């Protein structure tokens, strides 16, 4: 269970990215977070794994406090949280397998990862993660030589290799074409169902949010302005979250047909 209690994040320079956020997320939930750019979506995810320190409040994962955790504690917390990025964040100049093995960093002694001597069980976990996203045949290909959709799958495999209990996806499809976007979202939903990994996904396409989300959290200026079941969401809800009318730019609209 993930709990945000009265969490605020103020960046140096005074920008308040999150204001008094309260959230409860149960194990195994699939939560979609929507909001305009700058509404605090990325900050929300990064506060959870401590990449961005919360300024005040409390964030706990299964009872472990993230806010103010020491570096060793923080590493333990992060090792249980997989993260997927908008721009994939792969090391382009090395192999797909090496990228996925990065997910094993917390479990492997530093001297081993430093000289590239990964233990066989960890290599096996990495291979299985690649199998789960269906690109194990690319294991020894340089990451730079993959298409965008394949690169994001490597990103997912890297997160899976951590054997995480929570998965954070920060705009995972913003850099992908519509068809690939839906495949990647499908991968995330399948992993959520099959492995029971609690999943938080930032999205800005409303139709994708409707199609894949079960629970929707809406952020506006760092505040939670909506939190509820996706079936209760209307266009009026989105208007309220975005603070303006919905346009075609807010929809992915695959093959020209808007969903529902």
């Amino acid at each position, binding site marked *: 269970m993930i709990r945000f209690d009265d969490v605020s994040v103020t960046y140096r320079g005074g920008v308040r990215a999150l204001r008094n956020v309260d959230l409860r997320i149960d194990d195994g939930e699939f939560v979609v977070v929507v909001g305009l750019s700058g509404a605090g979506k990325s900050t929300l995810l990064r506060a959870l794994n401590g990449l961005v320190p919360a300024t005040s409040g409390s964030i706990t994962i299964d009872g472990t406090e993230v806010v103010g955790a020491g570096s060793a504690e923080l590493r333990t917390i992060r090792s249980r949280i997989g993260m997927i990025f908008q721009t994939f964040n792969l090391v382009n100049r090395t192999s797909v397998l090496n990228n996925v093995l990065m997910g094993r960093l917390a479990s492997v002694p530093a001297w081993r990862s*430093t000289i590239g001597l990964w233990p066989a069980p960890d290599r096996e976990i990495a291979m299985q993660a690649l199998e789960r996203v269906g690109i194990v045949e690319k294991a020894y290909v340089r990451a730079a030589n993959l298409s965008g959709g394949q690169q994001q799958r490597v990103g997912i495999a890297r997160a899976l290799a951590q054997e995480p209990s929570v998965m954070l996806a920060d705009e995972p499809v913003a850099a992908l074409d519509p068809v690939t976007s839906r495949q990647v979202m499908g991968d995330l939903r399948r992993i959520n169902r099959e492995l029971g990994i609690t999943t938080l996904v930032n999205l800005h396409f409303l139709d994708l949010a409707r199609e894949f989300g079960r629970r929707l959290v809406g952020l506006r200026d760092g505040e939670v302005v909506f939190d509820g079941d996706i079936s209760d969401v209307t266009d009026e809800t989105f208007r309220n979250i975005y603070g303006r009318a919905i346009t075609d730019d807010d929809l992915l609209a695959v093959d020209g047909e808007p969903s529902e």
Partner: protein
Amino acid sequence: MNGESAGGRPTRPRPGVRTWAVVGVIVAYTVFAGRQVDFDLSTFWNVWSNPLWEKFWPVPWDWVLDRHNVLDPLVETFQIAVVATLVGCGLALPLAFTMSPLTSPNRPTLVVSRSVMNVVRAVPDLFWAKLLVTAVGIGAFAGSWALSVFSLAVMVKLFSETVDGADPRPLEAARASGGRHLAVVRTGVLPTVLPEYVAYALYVFELNIRASVVLGLVGAGGIGRVIEAQRQYFRFDRVLGILMLVLVVVFVIEQVSVAIRRRLV
């Protein structure tokens, strides 16, 4: 004019008065500085009529190609350059990482390593050589040390800029996976900057070959010492032969190095 909108082509901007003023100041100061140091192009022609030049010819190839006279010291120069490149570039790798805000483990380390490198860089390489010749005695050992320090300074300067400009995104991904700092930098940053590192190391090696010739002049071993000795005996014919040989060696090494570097980056 400039503020015009809606489709009209803008007029091409002309270099302003300020540009001409800057050029004017630079030219004027160059002329002034030349007067101050008695720089005079006509003296350049007088140099060519100096009888000294006749001493350069013919080159005594028998002496130059004798192993003990030139080839052995030349090999020593090469070896000094190899050792210095490996030591200097080896030390530069971790140092460059501690010097970048992106990859430094903490702020104190950043400040300390930056200060140390500023001191090292402030001392000219020839002075390092003199200092080390005084400290450890004349010979290749002092030369290797002096050039190692020189390599370190150059390499850190070049490579730390690469580290500063490294892509922070894989680093963030590695950090998010919960690895220790060293492991995060090793897996998230090193592979992205390694080709540049090797390319710079080869470039530093090229510099070292040339610099170790110069360092020999102050007694730090290698071919430079032979050149200096022959110059003192006014055997400029031998000096010319040695320089031709050095030219060939430097040229070959640079060609190989450039070819490898081109493949890397």
